[in-house]
């Protein structure tokens, strides 16, 4: 499975990671190497196998419908790179 620069550019955009144009080709080569190695999974017959989606087969815990949290906006905002009047701030989104 060989990735070209265009595909890497697309994935990088989906993942919101800037990749310089000059880095696309070497990155494509690295990723292709990993994917080639992963390709051996296709040898395995999994036609009758249920996917394993988690690390446990135990029943998940649920929560009661009780308000047990919130009320601490200062803690929510404490680590924010930018905040204004109780809001997080980001560059203006033009819709």
């Amino acid at each position, binding site marked *: 499975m060989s990735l070209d620069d265009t595909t890497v550019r697309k994935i990088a955009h*989906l993942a919101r990671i800037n990749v310089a144009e000059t880095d696309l080709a070497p990155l494509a080569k690295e990723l292709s190497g990993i994917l080639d190695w992963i390709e051996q999974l296709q040898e*395995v017959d999994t036609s009758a196998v249920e996917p394993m989606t988690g690390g446990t087969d135990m029943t998940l815990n649920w929560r009661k419908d009780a308000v047990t949290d919130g009320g601490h906006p200062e803690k929510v905002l404490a680590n924010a790179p930018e905040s204004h009047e109780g809001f997080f701030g980001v560059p203006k989104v033009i819709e």
Partner: protein
Amino acid sequence: MSDLTKLSLSDARDGLDKGDFSAVELTQAHVQAMDSHRELNAFITEVPDLALERAKEADYNRSHGQAGALEGLPLGIKDLFCTEGILTTAASHILDGFTPPYESTVTANLKAAGAVTLGKTNLDEFAMGSSNESSYYGAAHNPWKKQGDPRNLVPGGSSGGSAAAVAAHMCLGATGTDTGGSIRQPASFCGIVGMKPTYGRCSRWGVVAFSSSLDQAGPMTRTVRDSAILLSIMAGHDPKDSTSADMPVPDFEAALSGDIKGLRIGLPAEYRPDNLNSDVAALWDKGIGWLKDAGAEVVDISLPHTKYALPTYYIVAPAEASANLARYDGVRFGLRVEGDSLDDMYAETRAVGFGAEVKRRILIGTYALSAGYYDAYYLKAQKVRQLIHQDFVTAFENVDAILTPTAPTPAFPIGENSDDLIAMYLNDVFTVPASLAGIPGISVPAGLSNEGLPLGLQLLTKRWDEETLFRVAGVLEHAAGFSGLPSDGEG
């Protein structure tokens, strides 16, 4: 090294109980050890003042008959655990300045038992790595060196800082996390005991997530007994983690009976490839002999899908990571690199904030989940994972525990494997299958390579059977009689 840092965690506990020394003295000794081993870069953040303050409280509590199970025992905390009021970095630039307003359940459990936190230990960035070289804060160093070779070695990873700190007697024990071997492999490299519990045994709440279906916290210590003591406190049901097991935590220390007569120990053929490192192979054979001598029955078994475990892992873990690491976007915490638009800000922040290996894994994961490739990669990997799990289920119908090497090689020099990604990934070849299956595993230091580097042997049991795991590990530890301190550990 002062005498107090030579103690095991259980001996230190007993010494405190008897009043042989105070928690403050014990803590001071370890703070000094941190100072004198700073070249190992084992800690990202040290909090000696907090530690001494806590130690004073511990002495007070003990004198008032209110000592917790770990009262006054100094520990290192992998910097993947969120600690309230203490910088938490995951060894990533992108978490610059992040001071959590909350405490992870595991570290809260340790605190509640009276433990003293010395600081936050180094790791591979977001726990992605097997050598600690991907840390934004620089590689941690293994306290061990090859005989006659001055080069610094990696401590393994991702819990490399914890392993180095424990091996160099900077703390009595440390927390680690294991996603594909991140506790067991560095334990093997540094000559300590590293234990990964059953998935769901320790709460993941407050542990920076890498791969949610694999991540599991566990103890890193110098003895099996210490491992059992720490796990008893770290483990337990947490309603804030829906995958945390709602079942009682056994007294693991009590499981160390020393008696394994009649237990059946499986030896998987697939873990002995033709090119297996000869020191590793020889040590494995010794280990088999020790368990036989102790009365266990040794059985050849097959785990037929073993060779697919690593490629499966390198789809499942990056896919989960690509979603788990989407929250690092410069909006609510950590690093922000300004951009003209929101998207520019995201892409710049994440380009600058993540290191090369983290980016690679996010991109692989994004690709594996993207249009047209989901079935071929992610779904396929989940199905192969099921087969790997079934291999173990079948094996444990016939055996009580499995014995394998922990890592395919001893520690290697810093920089040696950094150009060959697949070679680096192969470090986890023996540890990843158990992670995928969610079963517990432990690495016990069992001997030295011919270059004088420590090597571990790994034991595995079925889910929730940590008691058998500790029981066999105790016997293995006793038989191996591993006592080698790191070459510079006496300094």
